[in-house]
C-alpha cells in the first residue's frame, strides 16, 4: 500500500498512472491488437469472397502479418518490460502507438484510402492515447494522427501513391470531397481527444483526492492507536493506586464500617479492577496494532494447544452445564507464532462463546487444515447477534445489545484484540450469526508465514 502511495507521490504529474497500471495497460493493448488483427483479417476475407470489391488483399495480409508479428514481439517482451522503470514503460507505449498508427495508415491505404470509412478507426488510437497519457501528450498524438491521414490522402491525390478504388465511382481526386472529409476528420479527432483528456483529468483528480483522504485515514488511525497507548499507559498508575488504596482500606479499616458501607467500597474495588482490565487490554491492543511488540516466535503445536485451552475452560463449561463437542484434526502442522498470541486468540473466542451461550447450550469447536490454512471454528447455540451488531462486533469498546443484556461485565476489547492478533499473522476472522439461534466464529490462519503484515 505504502509503495503505491509513494509512487503516486513521486510521480505527481502522472497521478494515477503507476507502473503497475501501465503494465496492465500494455497487456491490455496487446489483447486489443490481437482483436484488431483478427477482425481486420475476417473483414478482408468476407470482402474478398462475398463482395465485388477488388483490393490488394495480399498486401493487406502482409501488413496484418507484420502487425501480428510485432504484437507477438510485444507479447514476449512484455515479461521483460515489467522490469522497466515507469518512464521507460511510458516510452515503450509511445513507440507502440506510433507503430500502430503507421500500420493503420498502410491498411487504410490498401483498403481504399479516403473512399473507405475504415479511417474512422483512427479514433480508437486517439481515445487510447488520451486515456493512457497524461498532460498534453494526447494532443500531440491527435496531431500526429491527423498528419498521417493527411499525408496519405495527399500522396494518393497527387499520384505519388496508387489509390485503390473500392467502388466504380471514386472521390479521391475530388478536392472538395477531400477538404470536407479532412475537416470533419480533424474536428472529430481533436474533440475526441479533448473530451477524453477532460474526463481523464477529472478522473485523476478524484483519484488523487481519494489517495489523499486514504492517507489521512491511515494517519488518523495511527494517531488513534498512539492515543490509546498513551492514555491507557497514563491511566494505569492512578488506577493501580486507587485499587491498592481501596484494598488497603478494606483490610485495615473494614471492621469499623457497616455492611452497606463495606459493600459500597467493595463495588468500587470491583469497578477499579474493571478499569484496570480495560486499560490493560487497550494497551495490549494498541501495542499489537502498532506492531511495536517484539514477538518470541516458536513452533506451536495447534491440536495440543487447543486441547489444553479446552481443558482449562471445561470448568466453566461444566458450571453452565453446557455440552461441548470438539473435532480437532491431529494432522494440523505446527504454526510459527508467539504461543501467547495464539492462546489469547483461541482462549478469548472459546471463553467468549461459553459466556454468551445460555445454560444447557451446545458448543462446537472444530479445527482442521484447508489449503495451507488453519481453519478454526467455534459454534454455539447462544443468544446470537444482529446483523448490525456483527458488523461492529470487532470494533473497540463495542458490545452487542444481546451481550450487554446477558453479561454485565465486559471490556468490549476482547474481540478487537483477537482480530488484531489474527491479522498480525496474516489471517482473518469472520462471524455468522442468527438471533436466538447461535453464532459461529471462523478463524483462518495461514500455516506458512509468507510476508504479509508479520514483523
Amino acid at each position, binding site marked *: 500500500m505504502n509503495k503505491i502511495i509513494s509512487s503516486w507521490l513521486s510521480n505527481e504529474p502522472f497521478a494515477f498512472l503507476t507502473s503497475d497500471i501501465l503494465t496492465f495497460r500494455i497487456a491490455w493493448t496487446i489483447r486489443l491488437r490481437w482483436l484488431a488483427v483478427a477482425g481486420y483479417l475476417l473483414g478482408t476475407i468476407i470482402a474478398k469472397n462475398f463482395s465485388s470489391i477488388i483490393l490488394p488483399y495480399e498486401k493487406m495480409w502482409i501488413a496484418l502479418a507484420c502487425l501480428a508479428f510485432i504484437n507477438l514481439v510485444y507479447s514476449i517482451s512484455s515479461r521483460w518490460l515489467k522490469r522497466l522503470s515507469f518512464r521507460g514503460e511510458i516510452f515503450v507505449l509511445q513507440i507502440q502507438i506510433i507503430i500502430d498508427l503507421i500500420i493503420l495508415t498502410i491498411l487504410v491505404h490498401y483498403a481504399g484510402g479516403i473512399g473507405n470509412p475504415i479511417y474512422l478507426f483512427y479514433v480508437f488510437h486517439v481515445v487510447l492515447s488520451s486515456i493512457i497519457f497524461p498532460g498534453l501528450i494526447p494532443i500531440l498524438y491527435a496531431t500526429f494522427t491527423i498528419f498521417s491521414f493527411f499525408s496519405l490522402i495527399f500522396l494518393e491525390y497527387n499520384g505519388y501513391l496508387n489509390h485503390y478504388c473500392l467502388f466504380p465511382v471514386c472521390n479521391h481526386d475530388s478536392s472538395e470531397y477531400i477538404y470536407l472529409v479532412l475537416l470533419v476528420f480533424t474536428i472529430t479527432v481533436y474533440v475526441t481527444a479533448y473530451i477524453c483528456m477532460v474526463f481523464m483529468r477529472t478522473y485523476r483528480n478524484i483519484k488523487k483526492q481519494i489517495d489523499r483522504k486514504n492517507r489521512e485515514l491511515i494517519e488518523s488511525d495511527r494517531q488513534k492507536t498512539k492515543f490509546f497507548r498513551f492514555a491507557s499507559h497514563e491511566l494505569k498508575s492512578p488506577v*493501580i493506586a486507587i485499587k*491498592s488504596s481501596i*484494598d*488497603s482500606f478494606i483490610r*485495615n479499616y473494614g471492621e469499623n464500617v457497616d455492611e452497606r458501607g463495606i459493600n459500597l467500597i467493595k463495588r468500587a474495588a470491583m469497578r477499579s479492577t474493571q478499569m484496570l482490565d480495560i486499560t490493560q487490554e487497550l494497551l495490549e491492543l494498541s501495542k499489537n496494532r502498532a506492531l511495536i511488540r517484539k514477538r518470541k516466535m516458536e513452533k506451536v503445536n495447534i491440536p495440543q494447544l487447543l486441547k489444553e485451552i479446552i481443558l482449562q475452560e471445561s470448568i466453566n463449561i461444566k458450571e453452565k452445564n453446557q455440552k461441548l463437542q470438539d473435532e480437532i484434526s491431529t494432522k494440523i502442522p505446527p504454526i510459527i507464532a508467539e504461543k501467547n498470541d495464539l492462546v489469547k486468540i483461541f482462549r478469548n473466542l472459546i471463553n467468549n462463546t461459553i459466556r454468551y451461550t445460555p445454560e444447557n447450550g451446545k458448543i462446537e469447536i472444530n479445527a482442521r487444515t484447508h489449503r495451507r490454512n488453519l481453519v478454526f471454528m467455534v459454534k454455539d447455540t447462544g443468544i446470537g447477534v444482529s446483523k448490525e451488531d456483527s458488523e461492529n462486533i470487532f470494533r473497540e469498546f463495542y458490545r452487542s445489545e444481546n451481550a450487554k443484556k446477558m453479561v454485565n461485565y465486559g471490556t468490549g476489547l476482547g474481540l478487537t484484540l483477537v482480530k488484531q492478533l489474527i491479522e498480525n499473522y496474516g489471517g482473518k476472522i469472520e462471524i455468522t450469526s442468527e438471533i436466538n439461534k447461535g453464532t459461529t466464529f471462523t478463524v483462518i490462519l495461514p500455516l506458512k508465514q509468507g510476508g504479509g503484515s508479520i514483523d
Partner: protein
Amino acid sequence: MPRKKILIIDDDIDLVEALRITLEKTGYDVIDAQDGEKGFEKAKMENPDMILLDVMMGTQDEGFHVAYNIRNEPEITDTPIIMLTAVGQETGFGFDKEKDADFLPVNEFIEKPVDPDVLIDKIRYVLGQ
C-alpha cells in the same frame, strides 16, 4: 521479637501510603524512598530487613538497576527484595518470572495492584516468619 523494618522504593506516594498502612498494621516498620538513587542510599543507611522495589520508576527497568546495585553492596547484599511489577508490564527485559528468577537479583515478584493478603504472605515467606 523486634519489629522488622521494610523499605518501600516506589515513586507513587499514594501507593506507598496504601502499602504502608497494611504493613504497619500487620506489625512492620516502614520507611520509603521515591526513586532508585534515594532508595539505594536509604538501604545502605538504614539497613532494612527487606525491600519492596517497584520495577518501573523513571525508566522501564530502574528497579533492576537498583536491585543489582544492592546485590553489589557488601553490607546489604543479602537483604531480601520483593519486586513490584504492573500487570503485563513491558520491562524492557522481557523477563519471565519462572525462568529468569535464578539470575535476577530479587527473591519474589508481586503484581500490582497488590492484594494485601498476598503481600503479607510473601513478606512472611521471604522473611522466614
